[in-house]
């Protein structure tokens, strides 16, 4: 990974720890976005006008300092860069780890394959990340770009959401994705904060883990409320 001529400080800047910090920061940026996104989604319960108004308003936040849709584009760019860096770091670390652990067939013994104490969520980070990435593409094509339109295309964002989530398999696909997000956040939040140095004691560890559970639960449930609300006919 590092070339021979680098000083230790430069190697340290390219080290696994630095990569992990990059993952942590980009992950937390995306988490921040998810919280805002979830807040917006919940407006679907306030009715079409409120939701569409909110969706529209996103485009003119910051005006007149920023041009129309300026902030949105800034957010989009930051997110895109975050996603790319997050994925880059993930792939680099995954490849390193695969070699370091001594191949995929590590221990012959079939016992203790699940490890000693590790959480289920920690197993899901890598394939969970891939699922989430695929889902995000599908999601953008569906609700942002209006390319895929299960239940019928519509000009109104509210209508697009309602059209889509009246179909059970659309809700199912979102549910699976949100569970993947929840698991990813369960370990990811904990791991990001630890990587950034917050795991300072056993008590801190308990607090960070509790926080990670709360974040994962809030995000998962928060995102699933609108689809289920629509599917169950609470939102029309």
């Amino acid at each position, binding site marked *: 990974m590092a070339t021979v001529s680098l000083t230790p400080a430069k190697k340290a800047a390219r080290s696994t720890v630095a990569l992990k910090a990059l993952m942590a920061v980009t992950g937390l940026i995306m988490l921040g976005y998810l919280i805002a996104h979830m807040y917006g989604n919940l407006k679907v319960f306030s009715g079409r006008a409120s939701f569409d108004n909110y969706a529209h308003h996103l485009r003119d936040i910051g005006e007149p300092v920023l041009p129309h849709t300026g902030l949105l584009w800034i957010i989009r760019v930051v997110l895109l860069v975050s996603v790319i860096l997050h994925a880059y770091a993930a792939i680099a670390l995954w490849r390193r780890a695969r070699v370091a*652990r001594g191949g995929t067939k590590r221990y012959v013994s079939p016992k203790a394959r699940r490890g000693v*104490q590790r959480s289920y969520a920690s197993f899901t980070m890598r394939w969970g990340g891939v699922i989430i990435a695929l889902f995000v593409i599908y999601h953008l094509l569906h609700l942002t770009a209006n390319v895929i339109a299960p239940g019928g295309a519509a000009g109104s964002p509210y209508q697009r959401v309602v059209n889509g989530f009246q179909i059970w398999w659309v809700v199912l696909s979102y549910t699976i994705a949100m569970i993947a997000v929840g698991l990813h956040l369960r*370990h990811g939040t904990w791991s990001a904060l630890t990587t950034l140095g917050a795991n300072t004691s056993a008590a801190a560890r308990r607090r960070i883990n509790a926080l990670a559970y709360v974040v994962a639960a809030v995000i998962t449930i928060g995102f699933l409320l609108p689809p289920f609300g629509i599917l169950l006919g609470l939102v029309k």
Partner: protein
Amino acid sequence: MNITLRVWRQPNAETEGRMVTYGVENVSEHMSFLEMLDVLNERLTLEGDDPIAFDHDCREGICGQCGVVIDGQPHGPLQTTTCQLHMRSFADGAVIDVEPWRAEPFPVIKDLVVDRGAFDRIIQAGGYISVPTGSAPDAHATPVPKTDADMAFDAATCIACGACVAACPNGSAMLFTAAKVTHLNLLPQGQPERYSRVAGMVAQHDEEGFGGCTNIGECTAVCPKGIPFETISFLNRDLLGSLIKGNR
């Protein structure tokens, strides 16, 4: 008690290894795991079979030389060193799998013996305080808050056995590296080299081919000395500090 052992046998680094099954009879529950292997080796020798090579030395859990993966867990079912594991931890008739530490930077030398020289090189990259003999001030010149001294001590108890690497799904030696960084960087004596130390050691850790830490904690769950998990966060903080300060 009688047990069945499935042991990794590998004549040398170049030859492929495999699991070989041995029965061991009349095992006393008071025997240590290594004493049970001694008994088996005595028998193998008399039968003309090559005895199983395994690393061990002090047999009191402090030197860190012993260590095998027992039933998929480094040092076996208890959180202790292999030499301190006793047969009372196993049931009569148990089938026990015994394998060497597995990690790319720990090549197998023979059977259950691996080369952990990478650890020494990580220490060489900064795991010390530069104080030439004779140049020290009086021991009481610098008081150290007890809490710092205690935390430094907790980290300093690492015995470099390598179980953390053997348990880590990423083959990371972050707990080993972090233990030393925490020990030295917490003490006032370690401050002048604080950031160059962490940068040097992390760089060497990666250079050796260890993987990155994903904060899963398997290392601390098998560590026979209970090196605290927070040492890794401590290392992370200091490494980020060194990047911000732009040392060297």
